[in-house]
């Protein structure tokens, strides 16, 4: 394996973005190449990854601003690697799906690549400063994707997205600084090193419980907004409704995962040292997101908005699984991130394709499309079935792991989730499917036909991946399980000594 794999993976899309920006004609080719190479690198990393250990691998570390202890440190473990894989896969497929983009293609493809730079950086950064920079970098391409290629209320949506998540980031930043200024290395130096600072939170001589709880809250808030969890979710449907399809896909598949990633990378290592009430908070917010999100999805008239709320509902499983603190539930929550990343792509692509072929996404105005778009109908059906948790597809594995793993610690929450959401989730998916796809075809849609082959191709690849990971989840859940173990270990001992 080449050295500096991660840096290369981050740098290549950045360089390709510059090329794409310079020439609109070749932008899509630059984007395809610039996203295929990172995919190849991440696949190679995945093959070479040592699946038995939870230490950081492929680590690179250089001094950056030594005066203040900022380093460029990147590396991956079982938490980050699956999401890096997801990001590289999804970016390639989004580029493919957008192959026919006509409006300002140079900027469009450059932004898709820039987005990849940001998310890869977030999932690999092991230095808080670096992490925050990448975290903010991600905002910019998404902001412009919504603001330039968006729908009629794009400005409102773009600003709301930007301010909401930016405020959350700033609060998170305060917490990061509080961590930074509280700790000195044995040599008496300040450091932004993530793992060092997180380990230090266990030292009660450095952090008073009060201070630590506040710091923790700031971080948690930042991640909850990003996921998004109820009640901080209202920016999401607005952003999705106005965003172009590619933007929506990246937003739902990758950007939301940053919040979940924060839970596993930063929140869970601190969890043993903060008030146990936070565990309850996470579980409550998770269950409310799942159930309430499902009912919200049921009430939507716009297909895309329905899919957006289904994201809220599905991301709730990540919180629930993390809050349940068993290896199976945490592993399931990590897999839910990965799985939802794939499934939601199909859903948003479906909504997008319907929008630009039929001209509307209002469910009640559509009908009988399967008649004219048979291939597309099969793919959309597959995506919807995956989303409602059909076995044989990845979503089922993730959700069943979360539920089965959570019952021991959170029985009531699991029962509320199971009885409150599963049937409703099936309900809104099937209802939308029936209205949009089945029944007699409406007259105005008689001229429709299956969408472009590149759209069909990217959706097909996603569906195959969803089925593959539904049948062979161990390919990736193994490394998640290894990563989950140290996260829940402190709680097993606490439980045994009767503290919790």
């Amino acid at each position, binding site marked *: 394996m080449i050295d500096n794999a991660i840096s290369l993976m981050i740098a290549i899309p950045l360089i390709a973005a510059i090329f794409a920006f310079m020439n609109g004609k070749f932008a899509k080719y630059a984007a395809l190449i610039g996203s295929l190479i990172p995919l190849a690198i991440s696949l190679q990393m995945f093959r070479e990854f040592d699946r038995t250990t939870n230490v950081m691998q492929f680590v690179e570390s250089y001094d950056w601003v030594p005066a203040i202890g900022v380093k460029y440190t990147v590396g991956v473990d079982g938490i980050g690697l699956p999401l890096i894989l997801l990001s590289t896969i999804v970016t390639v497929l989004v580029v493919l799906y957008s192959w026919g983009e006509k409006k300002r293609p140079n900027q469009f493809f450059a932004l898709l690549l820039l987005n990849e730079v940001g998310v890869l950086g977030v999932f690999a950064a092991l230095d808080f400063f670096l992490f925050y920079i990448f975290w903010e970098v991600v905002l910019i391409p998404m902001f412009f994707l919504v603001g330039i290629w968006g729908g009629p209320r794009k400005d409102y949506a773009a600003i709301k997205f930007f*301010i909401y998540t*930016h405020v959350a980031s700033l609060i998170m930043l305060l917490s990061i600084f509080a961590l930074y*200024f509280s700790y000195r290395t044995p040599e008496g130096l300040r450091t932004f090193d993530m793992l060092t600072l997180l380990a230090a939170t266990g030292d009660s001589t450095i952090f008073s419980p009060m201070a630590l709880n506040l710091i923790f809250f700031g971080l948690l808030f930042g991640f909850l907004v990003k996921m998004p969890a109820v009640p901080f979710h*209202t920016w999401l449907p607005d952003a999705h409704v106005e965003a172009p399809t590619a933007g929506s896909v990246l937003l739902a598949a990758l950007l939301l995962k940053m919040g979940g990633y924060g839970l596993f990378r930063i929140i869970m290592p601190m969890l043993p040292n903060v008030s146990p009430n936070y565990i309850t908070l996470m579980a409550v917010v998770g269950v409310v997101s799942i159930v309430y999100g499902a009912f919200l999805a049921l009430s939507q008239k716009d297909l895309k908005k329905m899919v957006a709320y289904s994201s809220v509902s599905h991301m709730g499983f990540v919180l629930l699984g993390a809050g349940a603190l068993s290896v199976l539930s945490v592993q399931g929550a990590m897999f839910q991130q990965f799985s939802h990343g794939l499934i939601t792509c199909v859903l948003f692509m479906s909504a997008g394709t319907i929008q630009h072929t039929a001209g509307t996404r209002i469910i009640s105005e559509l009908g009988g499309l399967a008649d004219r778009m048979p291939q597309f109908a099969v793919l959309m059906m597959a995506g919807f079935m995956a989303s409602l948790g059909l076995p044989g597809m990845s979503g089922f594995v993730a959700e069943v792991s979360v539920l*089965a793993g959570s*019952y021991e610690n959170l029985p009531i929450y699991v029962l509320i989730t199971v009885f409150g959401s599963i049937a409703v989730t099936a309900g809104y998916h099937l209802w939308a499917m029936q209205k949009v796809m089945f*029944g007699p075809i409406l007259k105005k849609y008689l001229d429709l036909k299956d969408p472009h082959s590149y759209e069909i191709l990217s959706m097909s690849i996603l569906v195959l991946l969803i089925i593959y990971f539904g049948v062979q989840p161990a390919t990736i859940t193994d490394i998640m*399980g290894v990563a989950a173990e140290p996260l829940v270990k402190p709680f097993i001992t606490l439980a045994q000594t009767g503290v919790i």
Partner: protein
Amino acid sequence: MYQDYAYLIVGLPILAFVLTIFLGWHLPKGGGFFTVLATFAGFILSFGIFREIYPNNEIVHQSMHWFASFNAGILIDPLAIVMLLMVTFVCTLIHTYALGYMEGDPGMARYFAEAGLFTAAMLGLVFSDNLLQLFIFWELVGLCSYLLIGFWYRKPSAASAAKKAFLVTRVGDVMFLAGIILLYTNMMRLNLVLPEGAYLLQFQTIYDSLALIPPDQLTWIALLLFGGAVGKSGQFPLHVWLPDAMEGPTTVSAMIHAATMVTAGVYLVARMFPLFYAAPDALMVVAYIGAFTALFAATMGLVMFDIKRVLAYSTVSQLGYMMAALGFGAAVGATAVGVSMFHLIGHSFFKALLFLCADSVIHAVATNDMREMGGVLRSMKWTGLTMLAGSLTLAGFPLTTGFFSKDEIIILAFENGAFGLGWIPYVFVILAALLTAIYTFRLWFLTFDGEPRSDYHKHESPWIMLGPLVVLALFALFMGMPTQGQFYDYVGNNFDHFGVDFEELAHIGGHHVEHGHVHEPFIFKILPIIVGVGGIIIAALFYSRWKRFDPSMVTSERDPLRHILLKRYYQNEIYTLWFAEKVVYGIALVSNMIDLKIIDGAVNKISAVSVGFGGTLRKVQTGVIQNYITAIVLGVAALLILIQLATMGVAI
């Protein structure tokens, strides 16, 4: 030798599914022969395995790791092998029939692809060696039924019936899943030291740990699992999807009602019988729900005029018998499993037969309404006679398969009463037997006897369709007598292979295993024959050429009871119009209101108050790029200032 290829029983139909989906469009008959051959190969394999394991009373077990603490595996024991044989055999016949039936439908390839997957899912469900895998195939069966019921998706009623089938069974699945989670957690708590190759949710492990799980937990688990079975097997109150499920092609109804899908619920309870046995309260619920369903559905079968709908209610009713038989296991132990499964197998032959016959008639007459039929026997001898065979056995005419299997269930019901577990189920099942005979022959006489009541096209179906009918008719009539005793022995002792100690389980459940049969007075012995034959005679007196009475003498258009039956006890109104559309959708609308007005309203308020952006948010529709840049710059500036502070060593 055959058992090494057991995985092919599911693998081949899946292969057929893939082949038909990709190549079917270019092949004659939509590539349907892939599915037929794959299913038939499954039958050969199953039969080969049966021949290998039957003589020495062995079982086949293969297993491998899947993910986390779960495995994937194959378990073929007596319970599974009889199901495998039945499903592959009946499905082969149904698929063959479909080659003729679906001829000319543009979606033929899709039909055979989905039918292949349906068969595969059902077979996978049957040979699973653990509960999670069973659930996975269970859900795939649900998916395939959704696709097949909605096969003619341009028809709104078909699309809607498909959705209904999926959602109603999903309600049961939710309980099933909750049951699995509860069972899993309870078994985790035991901290079992599992031997090499054993996994937590394997049936062997479950049977072994029943004695260690607290009894109240066992009762909950059993009830939740039963909830899944209620949904899938069309038991009251979740039976509503089944009569609507005939919106699909009739061959699909035949598959759903006979060989696949609805039998899954009964199979689940049979498979988990030791667990139910250790939870007698749950078993009692099974007995009562089953017996009630048997009667309840039969009442509705009496008044329907749609030929397929009558058969659909009869399926619900017969499933009630199977479920009740398992419930009576509280009194008689694992024998009940043999009895229930025998009825299941027999039923799958005659119900497939009846559906295919009904279809043959509909094909010729071009209506489902029995009021427009009459006298069909004259033009369709083979169909009429094979259907008569099916009707006789469904009505429980002496010496037919259905007679033996139903009689045995009624005996169990009697013993159940005699052992002090309640006489009500007995009353239900005996009344249901009477009604069954009446509605079955009402159907047969209305359709085949008398004079034609409309001007329909008279022709017999082709032999590719009649052939399967004849084979099924022979099985429906004569399978029962020679195999009955061996069958009870073979399947009834299924759990000996796992070392299940029913005495011990009875002790946990707090009841006793009763040995030996209760003395049954002579009148009770012949009662099933009386109600069976009596019912046929009653039907003949009302509907046949020997008619002595007119139906209007006992009921009229204004009869409220008849109205309730025709309205199917208003269940559609309660479930769909009230619960789904008013309650659930109402909650959804309220949630949406809360979201827009309260939560998002608060967000906008806060931003308005704190930054003064609220107004801007609404006004800035012009897209002033500078504003966005300003926001970004402000953020970065804040960052830089903080760093500056840091470098100067100012602590925050």
